[in-house]
């Protein structure tokens, strides 16, 4: 048998979990101590166990929330539906929250989906690319008339999410193996990013979530002030936006600033 055919059959056997009757077994020898089904089973079991371990490691709070049995069933379904196409195992779990959202049994469970989204964001922020924070003093280089045209770039780790209230409290309780709080009633916003090599997060008011979202899209300072949606929010004013901007600099979220050309 050619190598390519043997590898295709071997992989099919591992993915199918077929310890009996896998065609590859015809090419596998029994050892002195073990039959070939047992020996091939080492690869079948390792494949499943390894991927399940990746999921459990990246979503420990979700596992605590929905329970081990439900999590393991969900992991089984994900592994069955989604063979890894990632060279680096780091990225295998990335689609898990989306998969959860696509499942009939889970699509209405905002608490579980949002917790999974939050855990993925913590993981993504943790090893996102590095970037030097821009000191706020750099803004002195811009003339006052340039300010309305200023736009900013943000740290690559920064992620904004809308989550069910209580998601972060649930995460914290789960990580400390405490009793989980009851589900929240409304929805709120949170920023997740990396500071001092660890993922951190902070709740955002609706106006700051909107302003930061617009700023991350590249909208200029003056444009954000003008945006009707922003103006409609309580306490929205250029002064409020300047205050937010100062906070973003203080948190090290801003890594670049430039003034758009006039005209």
């Amino acid at each position, binding site marked *: *048998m*050619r*190598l*390519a055919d*043997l*590898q*295709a059959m*071997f*992989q099919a056997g*591992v*993915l199918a979990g077929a310890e009996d009757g896998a065609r590859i077994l*015809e*090419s*596998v*020898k029994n*050892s*002195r*101590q*073990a039959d*070939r089904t*047992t*020996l*091939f089973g*080492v*690869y079948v079991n*390792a*494949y499943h166990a*390894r*991927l399940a371990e990746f999921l459990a490691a990246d979503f420990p709070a979700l596992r605590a929330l929905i329970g081990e049995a439900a999590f393991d069933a969900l992991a089984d379904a994900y592994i069955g539906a989604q*063979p*890894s*196409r*990632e*060279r*680096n*195992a*780091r990225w*295998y779990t990335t689609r898990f929250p989306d998969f959860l959202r696509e499942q009939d049994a889970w699509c209405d469970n905002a608490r579980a989906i949002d917790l999974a989204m939050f855990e993925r964001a913590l993981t993504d*922020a*943790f*090893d*996102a*690319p*590095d970037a030097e924070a821009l000191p706020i003093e750099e803004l002195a280089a811009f003339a006052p008339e340039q300010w309305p045209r200023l736009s900013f770039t943000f740290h*690559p*780790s920064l992620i904004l999410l809308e989550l069910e209230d209580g998601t972060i409290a649930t995460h914290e309780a789960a990580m400390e193996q405490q009793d989980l709080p009851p589900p929240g009633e409304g929805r709120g916003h949170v920023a997740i990013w*990396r500071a001092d*090599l*660890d993922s951190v997060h902070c709740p955002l008011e609706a106006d700051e979530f909107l302003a930061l979202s617009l700023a991350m899209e590249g909208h200029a300072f003056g444009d954000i002030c003008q945006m009707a949606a922003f103006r409609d929010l309580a306490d929205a004013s250029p002064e409020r936006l300047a205050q937010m901007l100062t906070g973003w600099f203080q948190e090290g979220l801003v890594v670049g600033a430039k003034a758009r050309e006039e005209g």
Partner: protein
Amino acid sequence: MTRPPALGHGLGLRPIYYDEILSTRPAVDWFEIISENYMVGGGRPTAMLERVRADYPIVMHGVAMSLASTDPLDFDYLSELKALAERIEPAWVSDHLAWTGVHGVTLHDLLPIPYTEEALAHVAERVMRVQDFLGRRLVVENASTYVAFRESEMSEWAFVNELARRADCLLLLDVNNVFVSGFNHGFDANEFIDTIDPDRVAQFHMAGHTDNGTHRIDTHDQPVCDEVWALYERARRRFGAVSTMIERDDNFPPFDELLTELGHMREIAARIDAENTRSAA
């Protein structure tokens, strides 16, 4: 054929030990990284690696090159690996005589091959292309395997020697893998050790494994067992002072326990060197 200079006795750099390594600067001669763990954007993994690199030689050991796969080589992956190597300047770069998947799928495992002339020509050609691309000689490790194929036409050690000769690559002799595969397939681990070309061996791996009775699995979650220490002693006598490290990837003990294992390895090496000195005198 020139082997790289021996770095001494090393350990795997694993996240659980970052703080202890950086705060105590332990007497470890060098560290080996799992390359893929640092092929990420940035953050703690790359920051810790750069700090450790400032004080210790580093060797890059990969698990995802899939040298024996019949899929095309993944040059996106190799580009990332090359960029990491250019940043870290490792003493060398290694990966396994194994494949990880075909048809674009990755099983995240080191999968076995039949030891055939076809596979030998295929892997040797790929090793040469990887070496050309990376601009450095590759160090290729024998993997632990749990199945043997009817299609095999030669022994694993004959395959490994011929691969090294044809591709002009170096070898990472995983002593524990020799033991595990020897047990699983019923070959004599001593014969494997005694047959490998000494000029090609750049590094040894040592590790613990799990004894499942009918077969053994390379789990890296236990101390090195007595049989593998004995095999190390045999390898150390045959191959001389080769850079050696202990892999531990699960069931992590206090770091001191790894240092104690490393001390045991040093004692064996020192004893052999003393014997050699006496017999030469």
